[in-house]
C-alpha cells in the first residue's frame, strides 16, 4: 500500500530527515491561512497515488496568494486515473544545488534488499538508468541485518564527491534503511529528488510502499492516521461494495461474469474465455476457504452488474470445500431467484457432499435451477468455458 507524499514526508521528518516547510490543504481550508503561512515562491502539489505528477500538470509553482488559490481550485476534486484529488500540499520552493536519487526496494531475483543511489536525480531516473547506467549505484544488503553506519558512508561516498555533506547523506541512508524500510515492512522507500543545498540534504518528494500483509503490526502508522488501503482507481458501486467486503474485484468490459475459485484460476479463466472468443466482465478472487457470506456477496456483485449476461463459475475444492460452496450458491439461488444463466463446474474436496446439496435444493425448487448447470470433473473445464461463451453469444 502506497503512502501519500505528505504521509511519507511526515515519517521522514519524524526520523530527522529534512523536508521543505509545508502546509496540507483539504476541502475545509480556511483561505486566510494561505496569506499568513506561506513563503513564496511555493509549490502546490496534488496528493494522489500516481506517478509523473510533474509531467501531468499536477505540480504547480506559485508566487502569490491568488496563484495559490487558483492552483488549488484547479487541482482539488480533479479525477486522475480514476482517483480524486482530495488534498494538496503547499511547500516552500527550495533553491537546490543538485538533485540526487535514493531508494530502497527488494530485488526479487536475488531475494535481497537493494539500496539505489544516483547523483542524477529528478524526474527522469528511469531514463538515466538507460542512458547512464554507470551513474546508478546499487548496494545489495543481506536480509535480516541492520545497515551499519560504515555501509551508509560507503554508499554516500561513492556518489557524493562533496565531502562535507558525506555524513549527512550517510545518516539519511541509514535512517531510510533501519528506521523506515526495515521497521515498517516497506517494499519501497524512495526520495526523488533528494535535494542538496550546500551541505544539507532535503527530501523534495517521498514514496513509501508498505507491505499490506505486515501493516497490522505497525500500530504507530495507524496512530498517524494512515489506514490500510488497497490501491484502486475510482470505484463504481459494485467495486465499492466488493472493497468494503474485502473482495478483490475489478470490472472489465466483457459480458461473462467470472465466479472463480482463487486468484490464479481467476486470471487464467479470463485468458481462456478470450481464447474461445468471449470476453470476461470481471476479475474476482474468493480467497482461500471463503465464508458462505463472502461467496454470496460475490455472486450478488455479478447479478447486479447489468453488463453480465452469463455467469461462469468454477469451484475446485482444495482448502475451499465443495460443500460450503454448494451451500452458499443454493442459498443465494433460493433467496434471490436469479434469472441469469449460470454455467458452472464443481469438483474436488467434499464434492459428493456438495453434489447432494445441489440435488436436494433442485428437487425442492426446480423452477429456480432451470438456467443453472453444475458440471463435474468428467467435463473438461474448457468445455464448460466454451458453453458459457456460446451462451453469452445467444443472450
Amino acid at each position, binding site marked *: 500500500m502506497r503512502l501519500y507524499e505528505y504521509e511519507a514526508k511526515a515519517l521522514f521528518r519524524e526520523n530527522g530527515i529534512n523536508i521543505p516547510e509545508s502546509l496540507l490543504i483539504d476541502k475545509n481550508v480556511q483561505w486566510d491561512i494561505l496569506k499568513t503561512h506561506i513563503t513564496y515562491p511555493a509549490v502546490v502539489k496534488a496528493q494522489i497515488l500516481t506517478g509523473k505528477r510533474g509531467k501531468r500538470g499536477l505540480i504547480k509553482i506559485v508566487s502569490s496568494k491568488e496563484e495559490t488559490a487558483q492552483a488549488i481550485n484547479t487541482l482539488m476534486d480533479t479525477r486522475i486515473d480514476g482517483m480524486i484529488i482530495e488534498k494538496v500540499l503547499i511547500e516552500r520552493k527550495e533553491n537546490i544545488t543538485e538533485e540526487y536519487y535514493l531508494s530502497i526496494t527488494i530485488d*526479487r531475483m536475488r531475494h535481497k534488499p537493494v539500496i539505489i543511489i544516483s547523483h542524477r536525480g529528478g524526474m527522469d531516473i*528511469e531514463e538515466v538508468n538507460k542512458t547512464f547506467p554507470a551513474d546508478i549505484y546499487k548496494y545489495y544488503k543481506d*536480509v535480516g541485518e541492520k545497515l551499519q553506519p560504515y555501509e551508509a558512508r560507503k554508499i554516500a561516498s561513492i556518489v557524493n564527491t562533496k565531502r562535507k555533506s558525506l555524513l549527512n547523506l550517510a545518516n539519511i541512508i541509514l535512517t531510510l534503511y533501519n528506521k523506515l524500510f526495515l521497521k515498517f515492512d516497506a517494499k519501497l522507500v524512495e526520495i526523488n529528488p533528494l535535494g542538496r543545498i550546500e551541505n544539507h540534504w532535503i527530501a523534495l518528494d517521498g514514496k513509501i510502499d508498505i507491505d499490506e*500483509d505486515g501493516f*497490522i503490526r505497525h500500530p504507530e502508522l495507524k496512530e498517524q492516521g494512515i489506514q490500510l488501503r488497497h490501491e484502486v482507481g475510482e470505484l463504481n458501486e459494485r467495486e465499492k461494495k466488493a472493497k468494503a467486503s474485502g473482495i478483490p474485484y475489478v470490472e472489465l468490459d466483457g459480458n461473462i461474469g467470472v465466479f472463480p475459485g482463487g486468484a490464479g484460476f481467476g486470471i487464467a479463466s479470463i485468458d481462456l474465455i478470450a481464447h474461445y472468443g468471449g470476453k470476461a466482465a470481471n476479475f474476482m478472487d474468493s480467497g482461500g*476457504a471463503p465464508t458462505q457470506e463472502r461467496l454470496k456477496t460475490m455472486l450478488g456483485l455479478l447479478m447486479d452488474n447489468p453488463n453480465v449476461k452469463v455467469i461462469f463459475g468454477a469451484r*475446485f475444492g482444495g482448502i475451499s470445500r465443495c460443500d460450503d460452496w454448494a451451500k452458499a450458491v443454493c442459498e443465494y439461488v433460493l433467496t434471490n431467484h436469479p434469472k441469469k444463466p449460470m454455467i458452472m463446474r464443481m469438483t*474436488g474436496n467434499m464434492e459428493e457432499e456438495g453434489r447432494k446439496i445441489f440435488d436436494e435444493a433442485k428437487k425442492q425448487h426446480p423452477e429456480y435451477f432451470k438456467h443453472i448447470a453444475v458440471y463435474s470433473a468428467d467435463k473438461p473445464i474448457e468445455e464448460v468455458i466454451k458453453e458459457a461463451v456460446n451462451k453469452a453469444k445467444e443472450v
Partner: protein
Amino acid sequence: MAILVDENTKLLIQGITGKNASFHAKLMKQYGTKILAGVTPGKRGETIEDIPVFDTVFDAKANYPEINTTSIWVPPLFAKDAILEAIDANIKNIIVITERIPIHDMLYARKKAIEKGINVVGGNTPGIISPEKALVGMLPRKTFRKGHIGTVARSGAITYYLANTLNLAGYGESTSVGIGGDPILGMTFGDILKLFDEDPDTHAVIMAGEIGGVYEEMAKETIKNMKKPVLAFISGRYAPKGKRMGHAGAIVEGNLGTAQSKIDALREAGATILETFSEIPLRLKELNILP
C-alpha cells in the same frame, strides 16, 4: 520415485489445532500420509485425529525423531517463527500452507533455510501430492492419479485443472507441486524443475505461472539445461494491468513480470508454450510422451 513427498514422508503439522489444519489432517491421513505429530504451543497432551500434539517442534522431534517433513498452517504473522523453528529442528522439507506472510518475514525465513540446505515450499501453497504415496496440504486427492508427468504451479486451482486435464486424457502425475501464491516464495520454479529432472519417474514437466513476480523468468537457465521436456502455461495475458514497484522496481527488474516477458523467456529456454489446458495431451504426444 517422486519428489519432495512420497511413501517415506513422516509428517509434522504445525498449527494442527486450527480449523483447516485439523480438517485436512483427517483427509491427509485418509489418503495414507504418515502423520506422526502436531504442534500447537500450549496444547501439549491433546490429540487431533489420534495425532499427538506437542508444545514445540523440538518436543515433537524428540518423541518422533523420524519426522522429515512439516506443514505449516499457523496465522500469517506467526509463520516466520514456525518456519524458523522447523529449520532449527532440522526438518528437511517445510511446506508452508499459510498465506499472506509478510515479505520481510519470508525473505528472512528462506535465507535461513537455504543456509541450512532445507527445502521450503510456499507460502500460500495448496500443498504437494505424489499420487498413491503421500499428500501434504489440501489438494483434492481424487483429482490426482499416479503417472509420469510432474506439475508445478503457483495457483492451487490450476494445479488441480492440470491434473484433471491429464487424467481425462489417461495421463497421471509423478508429483504435483503448488509452489505457492505469495509474492516471496521458498522454492521457485527452477528449484522444483531441477528435482523433476532428476526424478526417474517423471517423463515431462508442466509448469503453470502467471503475471507478476520474476520466478518464471528465473527458471530460464534451468530449463535450458534440462534433459526432460517442459510445457509452460502462463496466465494473465488479458488480465487488468498490475502496478509496478515505482522507479526502483524498473531499475532493478526492468520489464520483467508481464505475461509476455515470461512467455518469451520460457519459449527461448526451449519450453513448449501452452495456451489452453485441453491442448496438453496433444503437445505431450508431439513430444512422444505417452500416458
